[in-house]
């Protein structure tokens, strides 16, 4: 893999699991004399100093999903010490030399943040990391006391003998470091967990509330220069001419350099767009210098395109047949023989990620080494990109992983790292690249647009006998070298999602619609629109056939079974788990009780990346604005790791979904993005945000990641509730002022 893509990422990390850190223990300090007072590294993730303080490494990219807390918890559970004895330390991205190509392997295993994989990826290797350290400590005590390790107990940061002897981890650490653990150590059973499943507060919380926490944008060094870039506003456009004379007269401006882009149609390997960088002594001078630039652009092949035209192209495509992605039975025959066919179309807009901390990157280039500090989600990609651009070996590139002010998939792309490197190569000084919010909204890898045509065939008894889901959307692989092999529908069709498998005649179709943008992964990517279309349509079928929406869903989910699910989050989908969260949501909102006057209830459920979620909402609409009175989210992620973090992800994901449904979209006119800053990309604020009642299903199954699953069913639960309250069916997102004008 040379480039990050969701599926490739999973493949890479699971091969990495095999040989990576199993057996990777580091023997750094001899067990004698003064050196024994130095901290002892027991495994790659556990360091103990003789005074007993225990340091556990956090390997992930902390983007607000809580991995700096939850991943160390996996280690600590098996290390068998109280959380209060542990200090968490962020690890950098690190590689070791390896004999096989590409000549390096990740020292700490999977460090990226994407696809909700951090917890599933760490479930085995991080628990093993803790368990091996504990095994080594117990073994050291057994040797010291000439006893059997199996009789020794742990639990409070010490090893205890049944006869009362006790040695702290700190006392044992130096001996333990000289003992090699077996390749695989016995792990706890879920009933033995003391930490997993409890609520552990955010590791950096105190630093955050005092302003001491450090994010990518905070990196600095003596003599650092600040850069901002004026980028070509047209897809695949370029620089025609630059007049930087006024810029160079701005006090504080040090240099103006060009960043090349990619030729039209060419893969986007590094930075997204061509641009002109203004490099200055401070951010404000750089911003003023940029304002003074006069750049003429070549406008590229998309300069007259617009989202309106894109919608027309998509609508035309939906009239055609598209290509078949999945076919069970024969939908056409079912339609010909069914009592009735119900149809509806749904449209979802492009979205920007808009992480609260805009993209940006600090880079220091030396002749032998490079140092990168940036808020990223894909450090492996950063490493490859910097190596490609500088010619440095990957082992000579240091990548630090500060906290990120949100990610949402934006930072799976490392285009801003490439930009910073290209600038630093020209100015030969440490550089910090700053993106303004305007840069961020205008130069994102956007969540793709899609138009979904759904058809259901219902027989005379009201049974659904046929189902078709036709997606017209921008094809996924556009300009993305990592996606060249993937089918065009990847990332926009979810052919194995329910009701596939439960309806005899099921068809999934795809029609590509060209558009100039480079699509990106936006938190819970295809699920954000797949769930909206499917779960809205189920409601429409229920209304048309006078069925109860919960009962119809349970029919469509079908009997409890495991069925193959080939996309990310598979290999199986368990229908019973989805039915259960749906029923729980219905119970919690008292689905069968009368709704208070003027209000409506809506419900929806969805399977995302191995997790099952359902939302139930109660809303009213007054003067065209929606008021959310109750908002319930039920989730089954399997074994809970950090209950506090899980609740936060589900609550925050729900609010992300609702915020998106209400007002968010990115549009183009004359080839240019129309949204400039938060005033025209109006995220939900405190006033509108409901208290989300989160309910978590108890389970001991291997855990799924929960950073994305809170979103998908929130959107249709909202629009279904709006329909119940007002009779108005929302088929195009965002809701915007449709409730005002359409009544």
């Amino acid at each position: 893999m040379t480039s990050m893509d969701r599926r490739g990422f999973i493949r890479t990390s699971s091969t990495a699991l095999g040989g990576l850190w199993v057996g990777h223990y580091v023997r750094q300090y001899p067990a004698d004399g003064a050196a024994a007072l130095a901290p002892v590294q027991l495994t790659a993730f556990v360091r103990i100093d003789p005074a007993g303080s225990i340091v556990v490494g956090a390997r992930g990219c902390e983007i607000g999903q809580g991995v700096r807390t939850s991943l160390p918890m996996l280690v600590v559970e098996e290390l068998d010490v109280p959380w209060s004895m542990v200090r968490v330390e962020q690890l950098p991205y690190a590689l070791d030399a390896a004999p096989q190509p590409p000549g390096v392997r990740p020292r700490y295993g999977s460090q990226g943040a994407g696809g909700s994989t951090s917890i599933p990826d760490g479930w085995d290797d991080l628990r093993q990391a803790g368990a091996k350290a504990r095994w080594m400590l117990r073994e050291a005590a057994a040797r010291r006391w000439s006893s059997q390790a199996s009789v020794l107990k742990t639990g409070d940061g010490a090893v205890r003998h049944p006869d009362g002897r006790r040695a702290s981890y700190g006392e044992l650490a130096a001996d333990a470091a000289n003992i090699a653990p077996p390749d695989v150590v016995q792990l706890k059973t879920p009933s033995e967990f003391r930490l997993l499943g409890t609520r552990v507060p955010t590791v950096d919380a105190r630093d955050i509330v005092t302003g001491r926490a450090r994010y990518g944008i905070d990196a600095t060094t003596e003599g650092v220069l600040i850069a901002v870039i004026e980028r070509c506003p047209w897809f695949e456009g370029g620089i025609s001419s630059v007049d930087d004379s006024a810029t160079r007269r701005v006090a504080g401006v040090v240099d103006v350099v060009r960043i090349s882009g990619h030729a039209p149609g060419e893969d986007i390997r590094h930075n997204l767009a061509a641009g002109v960088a203004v490099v200055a002594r401070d951010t404000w001078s750089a911003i003023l210098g940029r304002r003074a630039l006069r750049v003429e652009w070549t406008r590229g092949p998309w300069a007259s395109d617009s989202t309106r035209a894109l919608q027309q192209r998509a609508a035309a495509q939906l009239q055609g047949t598209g290509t078949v992605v999945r076919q069970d039975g024969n939908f056409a025959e079912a339609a010909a023989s069914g009592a009735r066919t119900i149809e509806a179309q749904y449209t979802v807009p492009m979205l920007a990620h808009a992480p609260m901390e805009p993209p940006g990157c600090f880079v220091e280039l030396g002749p032998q080494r490079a140092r990168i500090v940036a808020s990223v989600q894909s450090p492996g990609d950063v490493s490859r990109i910097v190596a490609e651009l500088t010619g440095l070996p990957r082992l000579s590139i240091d990548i630090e992983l500060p906290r990120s002010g949100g990610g949402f998939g934006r930072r799976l792309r490392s285009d801003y790292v490439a930009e910073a490197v290209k600038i630093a190569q020209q100015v030969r000084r440490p550089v910090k690249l700053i993106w303004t919010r305007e840069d961020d909204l205008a130069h994102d890898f956007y969540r793709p647009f899609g138009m979904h045509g759904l058809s259901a065939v219902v027989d005379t008894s009201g049974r659904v006998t046929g189902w078709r889901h036709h997606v017209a959307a921008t094809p996924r692989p556009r300009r993305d070298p990592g996606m060249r092999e993937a089918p065009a529908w990847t990332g926009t069709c979810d052919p194995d999602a329910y009701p596939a498998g439960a309806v005899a005649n099921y068809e999934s179709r795809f029609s590509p619609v060209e558009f100039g943008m480079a699509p990106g992964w936006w938190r819970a990517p295809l699920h954000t629109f797949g769930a909206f279309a499917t779960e809205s349509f189920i409601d429409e079928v229920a209304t048309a056939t006078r069925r109860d929406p919960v009962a119809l869903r349970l029919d469509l989910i079908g009997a409890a079974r495991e069925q193959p699910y080939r996309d990310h989050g598979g290999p199986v989908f368990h229908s019973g788990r989805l039915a259960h969260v749906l029923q729980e949501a219905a119970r919690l909102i008292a689905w069968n009780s009368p709704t208070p006057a003027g209000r409506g209830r809506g419900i929806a459920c969805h399977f995302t990346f191995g997790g099952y979620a359902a939302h139930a909402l109660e809303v009213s609409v007054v003067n065209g604005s929606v008021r959310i009175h109750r908002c319930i989210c039920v989730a089954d992620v399997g074994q809970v790791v950090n209950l506090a973090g899980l609740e936060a992800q589900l609550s925050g994901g729900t609010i992300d979904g609702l915020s998106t449904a209400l007002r968010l979209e990115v549009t183009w006119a004359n080839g240019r993005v129309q949204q400039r800053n938060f005033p025209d990309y109006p995220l939900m604020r405190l006033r509108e945000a409901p208290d989300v009642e989160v309910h978590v299903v108890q389970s001991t199954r291997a855990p799924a990641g929960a950073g994305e699953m809170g979103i998908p069913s929130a959107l249709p639960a909202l629009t279904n509730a709006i329909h119940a309250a007002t009779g108005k069916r929302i088929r195009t997102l965002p809701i915007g002022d449709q409730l005002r004008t359409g009544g």
Partner: protein
Amino acid sequence: MAVRFTLNGRDVAFDGDASMPLLWYLRDYAGLAGTRFGCGVGACGACTVHIDERATRSCSRAMSTLDGREVRTIEGLAQGETLHPVQQAWLDEDVPQCGYCQAGQIMAAAALLSRTPSPSDEEINGLTNLCRCGTYPKIRKALHRAAALLREEKAP
């Protein structure tokens, strides 16, 4: 002519570009990176500080306007190791997710509570700081908790 003001209780003078927003002075020159950049146009509140005890969006406040003012940033809110009640409440409710917006949220909340010790829901809803992670329900809870803590502090 230099602009003179106090920053977290210390006298400072600035004689650079008077049009520079306070935000970039804090981040690039004062070494106070806890005040955050989110939009630069006064729309998100990530850059909120106190000027003369009022919540102010520092991205939209030029250095030239600060002469004789008292500026307080997130780094100056606690009394040594003793957290301000709003910070303590934020910890108790474990509000932060990515945490990036939270310095601004805390500064906005502290300013609200300093003049409105028992804010109504409507007054709380008047806080317009954005949180992309959606921590609003916890912000609401933490605000009520902080109000209670402050009232306790003031009680004789």
